[in-house]
């Protein structure tokens, strides 16, 4: 298997430490340079959106059983990984490694997912 070419990212560390304002166009731009905090925030919100959608979906169908918590975890982590590794083509070592990126917003997303799933399930099916 050929080595995937990973883009090394330029840090936005200018001499006056000014972080440029966030531009939504860079969300899908593999050539954009990322600040660690901005990337962390984007990954956090991606997780929250996925958690909300999964919770609403799982509760509506309804999907029942603890296995679906694992499915959510794998799915949301896969989406986050796919986003920073494939869409943005970032080098995870520049941002603290896979662990640091994958844990952004993880706990909050689990609680949000459970909340949405439980609420929709309880209100829609009883």
């Amino acid at each position, binding site marked *: 298997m050929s080595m995937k070419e990973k883009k090394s990212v330029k840090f936005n560390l200018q001499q006056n*430490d000014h972080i440029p304002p966030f531009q939504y166009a860079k969300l899908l731009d593999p050539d954009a340079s990322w600040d660690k905090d901005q990337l962390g925030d984007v990954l956090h919100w991606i997780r*929250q959106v996925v958690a909300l959608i999964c919770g609403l979906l799982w509760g509506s169908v309804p*999907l*029942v059983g603890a296995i*679906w918590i694992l499915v959510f975890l794998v799915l949301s982590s896969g989406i986050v990984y796919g986003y920073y590794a494939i869409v943005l083509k970032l080098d995870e070592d520049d941002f603290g490694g896979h662990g640091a990126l994958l844990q952004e917003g993880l706990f909050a997303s689990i*609680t949000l997912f459970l*909340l949405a799933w*439980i609420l929709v*399930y*309880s209100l829609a099916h009883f």
Partner: protein
Amino acid sequence: MATMLSSLKYSDSLTVVGISFCTAFLCEGISWLLIYRTSSYKSLRSSIDKASKKLETMKTEGPSSTKKSKTKKIDRVETTLKESTRDLSLSKFKSGAVVAVVLFVVFGFLNSMFEGKSIAKLPFSPANLVQKMSHRGIPGDDPTDCSMAFLYFLCSISIRTNLQKFLGFSPPRGAANAGLFPMPDQKIN
């Protein structure tokens, strides 16, 4: 709409979520009043952000000076970061007591309203450890009955964390590895 909602078997869960939302806004408002708007908090936060970014740059840079002087510089920046983080934690700790009282009062109020009542249905059977909270005070053996305590816990974490993030009040990432009682760091080789 209100009649339709109140006719649902588990409509009380919406009451808990609504109260949690209001409590989260109230707590963040108190925090802003007592902590976030103060100049000491803003300067501490800025100092932590700068120190952590400087530390990152120094750790990822190639060897530009002697190893010994580089290690000394890194140590100085790390010390500054730890001290600022400790000061930040202390300033938040003092005002956090007020928030804790509010949360305690709200929990007590909700507990008095919904004690012994199942306010939601879990779509899974939780582990025994989780059941201590999820089945708290509920009669019967059905593990999928959900108590107010568990739902309130989920609401608190999810709503408050995301509200803090949205308002820009979440703790700086540079402070994540240091705390009130920092552990000794590994030296960089």
